[in-house]
């Protein structure tokens, strides 16, 4: 069993390096910890390894070198897939960048009910939870629809609902505002704020610098050499224009307006 109470550190990465076969490393010597209740944004230029890092935290990839401790336990490829995956995935929710690939059931109801159906809840309980979460998300009218035919924003909401219904302790989102119109973005910020108030740990990978100060307190910035360039409070990092230019995240016209 994973030990939730071992201090407040949920993730601890030490000297993590990851790469695909015969390719350049995608992550090099990554080292940081995530404490319970933190809100963290992972920043960096395209291809710096943000999504790979999130996949490692979600238990989809395993480092070539170094160690990842999650809930005080080392994530080991063999043991993980055989025994711990289910328990782990009920604690760590992951929202893909492309919601389309995340939705695999024939109706929205089945999609959202997929997780709780496996937990031994009665049909009535599952149905109540699905209705509650759909009311919260404003997607009750979509319940009988096919996920494939929804708009980008609706797909994102369904993907979020299908993960949140499992009550994960940690929510990981890759580019959370992709495909969202401004109104839905603002709704998402409110939702993430609410989830943070309930003690959830939130980790995002994003390019949206206008958003990160609203959804996170800490930022980890990756350099193009796939190493961490800075790990600072968000507002402090956003003021470091030279650093952001050096890692190729912004151009010379960038100015931070708090």
């Amino acid at each position, binding site marked *: 069993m994973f030990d939730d109470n071992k201090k407040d550190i949920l993730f601890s990465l030490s000297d993590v390096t990851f790469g695909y076969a015969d*390719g350049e490393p995608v992550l090099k010597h990554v080292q940081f910890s995530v404490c319970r209740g933190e809100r963290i944004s992972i920043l960096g230029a395209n291809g710096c390894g943000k999504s790979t890092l999130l996949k490692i935290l979600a238990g989809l990839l395993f480092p070539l070198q170094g160690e990842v401790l999650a809930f005080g336990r080392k994530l080991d490829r063999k043991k993980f897939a055989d025994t711990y995956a*289910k*328990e782990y995935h009920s604690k760590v929710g992951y929202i893909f960048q492309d919601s389309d690939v995340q939705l*695999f059931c024939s109706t929205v109801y089945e999609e959202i009910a997929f997780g709780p159906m*496996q*937990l031994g809840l009665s049909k009535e309980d599952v149905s109540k939870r699905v209705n509650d979460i759909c*009311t919260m998300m404003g997607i009750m009218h979509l319940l009988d629809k096919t996920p494939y035919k929804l708009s980008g924003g609706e797909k994102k909401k369904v993907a979020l609902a*299908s993960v949140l219904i499992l009550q994960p302790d940690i929510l990981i989102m890759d580019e959370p505002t992709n495909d969202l119109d401004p109104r839905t973005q603002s709704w998402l910020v409110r939702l993430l704020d609410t989830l943070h108030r309930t003690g959830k740990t939130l980790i995002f990978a994003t390019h949206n610098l206008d958003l990160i100060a609203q959804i996170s307190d800490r930022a980890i910035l990756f350099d193009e050499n796939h190493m961490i360039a800075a790990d600072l409070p968000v507002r402090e990092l956003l003021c470091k224009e030279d650093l952001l230019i050096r890692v190729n995240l912004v151009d010379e016209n960038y100015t931070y307006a708090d």
Partner: protein
Amino acid sequence: MSVKPDTKYISLPDWMTEPAIRAPAQPSAGKLNFLRKTMKKISQVFENEFFCEKYAARPLFWQNIDTRVKIIISLLFLILSSLVSNPVTLVILASIPLFYAKLSGLPLRVHFRRVWLYIPLVSFFLTLPAATNLFVQGKVMFYLFQPGFQGMKDGLYFTIPGLLASLRIMLRAGISISFCFLLLLTTRWSQITGALMSLRVPVLFVSIMNMTYRYIFVLLLMANNRMEARFLRTVGKLKAADNRSFVGQTTAHLFIRSQDYADEVYDAMCCRGYSREPARTKPPHLQRTDIIFIFSNILIVLFLAAGESVLHV
């Protein structure tokens, strides 16, 4: 639902603020896990070996031969393999692409495993029922059931001609795959399509091949992501029927997506001036090494064809 007065926040259902129901640690669903891993491996092969041109970029033996020559020689060997029936000739034919693979820097063990341990073996086992005396008469290789068993007068046995026929099918399948793999791994895709066009293969056929090659990886990646998404939300016990239905839905989804992609790609091509007639580039002249390669391979083909009439099984 508890409604919080502060409009800055969204009101959460009561159960969302209560302790979560967690699945106990339990073994994963083996079959779907196997499927997920297999698909991941396939996409890795595409990503790391075909698309990165890992072997095609090396200036070794088979890589230095003109692509048109490679295609024609491969076809020549494939035609020969379908015409000859002697297993010894077929085994020699099967060893030729392995020899070329070795000279071209392909890891022989991996190449052998990929080529021979799947499709040819499956072909062999699938044809085994036809190798019995029920279908092919001949000398007994070994008995499955002795004469008189359950009223079978002659019993049930594998015949030598039957097993030889199965072996031939296996070897022919292996030879075909072996040459295809050799060609694909050691040649840039653009060179293959260019060579096909200069060999007067219909443009439509080459265009479809090109689009398939470009988008097969995208679709594979999509299927992979769906598998991973499901794996991430598999927090308890699933029924076998659910797994089957998931595989069916994924297939249907990919089919629909590939149709969408095909339409979008065609529109994008039209927007960039495509008029159903891709531009042709003038094929380069054959080098001396290509000519030597052609003649040496024709000699091998003639030698094997002559040997076929000499050898008897």
